């Protein structure tokens, strides 16, 4: 049995990786972004209607128009794409994709909580919801209609995130949000076994944790946050930045921190942007996201029959949707082309 399963090991990923490669070919090419930057919103809507987003734009065109239509179509397409991955996978890949997509449950819970905290109307909240996790769009819609943050938390009492949510005692949501992120990664890391597929998934995940931690460290160091406040946001389980290293980095000044990060492989992606007097952190964040995408692309070539091509596709799709959203929002608020371009991950 062991020999047979070794001989047939690659087969369970052959189907899903072939499909993902087919889907990847339909992502927008990089050359498309400069063209989109020169267009107005109706032209962008028409152009994306000729791509994968056609069905979503057509179906939502009855209820929305302009920027709202594009935003809803992008969120819906992203959710449908992720759901398709769940539908076409079985066994180990299905399990890993399901667990990974729980990040959208966290995203949706955070979106609803923030919306309620700031008194946004349900329609406004639902614009940012991506129902790719285990919580269905219908459930999120119902939750978004509730009156208060406490009501939302009570409605989520059946979810695995309730132990964190019930600790909320009013006031700012940042602590709950940080704890939700930590819970998501802790659950994910705990649920992984020893199979080859799970080990590769773990590696991808730990790099993702490192990148999130570096982003948080940069943001909070620049804002002059205290060590304890910084530690509250950091997620354990990173690849290069273990807990000891994070504790050390959190205690440093901004200058010491940016010097110290030079020793890590992420530095090559951000070295040209990190300066003592940099105005915005966006270049650093874009650099880190590009690093993450390039890394995923590189390792998915090393292990073509594994979960990694699927992860790479999920990441690339999310980046495409984010880029389109940035372009549309940027155009809607009349930002200059250069500013929009700086925010795009390519």
């Amino acid at each position, binding site marked *: 049995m062991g020999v047979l399963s070794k001989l047939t090991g690659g087969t369970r990923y052959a*189907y899903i990786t072939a*499909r993902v*490669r087919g889907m990847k070919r339909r992502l927008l090419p990089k050359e498309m972004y400069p063209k989109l930057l020169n267009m107005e919103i109706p032209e962008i809507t028409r152009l994306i209607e000729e791509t994968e987003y056609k069905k979503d734009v057509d179906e939502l065109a009855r209820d929305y128009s302009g920027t709202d239509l594009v935003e809803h179509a992008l969120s819906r397409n992203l959710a449908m794409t992720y759901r398709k991955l769940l539908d076409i996978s079985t066994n180990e890949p299905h399990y890993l994709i399901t667990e990974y997509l729980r990040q959208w449950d966290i995203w949706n819970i955070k979106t609803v909580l923030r919306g309620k905290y700031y008194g946004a109307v349900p329609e406004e909240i639902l614009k940012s919801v991506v129902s790719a996790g285990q919580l269905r769009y219908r459930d999120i819609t119902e939750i978004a209609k509730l009156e208060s943050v406490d009501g939302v938390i009570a409605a989520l009492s059946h979810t695995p995130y309730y132990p964190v949510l019930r600790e909320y005692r009013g006031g700012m949501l940042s602590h709950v949000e940080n704890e939700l992120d930590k819970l998501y990664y802790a659950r994910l890391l705990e649920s992984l076994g020893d199979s080859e597929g799970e080990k590769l998934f773990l590696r991808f995940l730990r790099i993702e944790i490192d990148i999130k931690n570096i982003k948080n460290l940069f943001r909070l160091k620049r804002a002059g946050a205290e060590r304890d406040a910084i530690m509250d946001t950091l997620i354990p389980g990173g690849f290069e930045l273990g807990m000891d290293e994070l504790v050390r980095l959190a205690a440093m000044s901004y200058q010491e921190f940016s010097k110290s990060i030079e020793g890590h492989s992420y530095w090559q992606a951000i070295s040209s942007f990190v300066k003592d007097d940099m105005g915005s952190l966006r270049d650093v964040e874009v650099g880190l996201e590009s690093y993450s995408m390039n890394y995923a692309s590189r390792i998915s070539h090393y292990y073509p029959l594994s979960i990694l091509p699927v992860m790479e596709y999920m990441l690339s799709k999310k980046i495409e949707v984010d880029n389109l959203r940035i372009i549309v929002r940027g155009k809607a608020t009349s930002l200059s082309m250069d500013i929009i371009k700086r925010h795009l991950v390519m």
Partner: protein
Amino acid sequence: MAMDPFAAGMLAVGAGLAVGLAGLGAGLGEQAIGAAAVGAMAEDEKFFGKGLLMTVIPESIAIFGLVVALILLFLFNK
């Protein structure tokens, strides 16, 4: 001269193993290619021809097995 019945039997077993094991090997090779070809075709129908070609390539191993079996049965079994 008639062949020793034991040797003739062993030749038949050998021929059977040649076809059987070659078929098993081809099957193992084809399973991942077949799954990938179906996956690629599901995304793009134009991949049908290429997918079919890729899937049958390991069949050559089964044909080698068949040739070895025929040689055993017809050339040596005299």
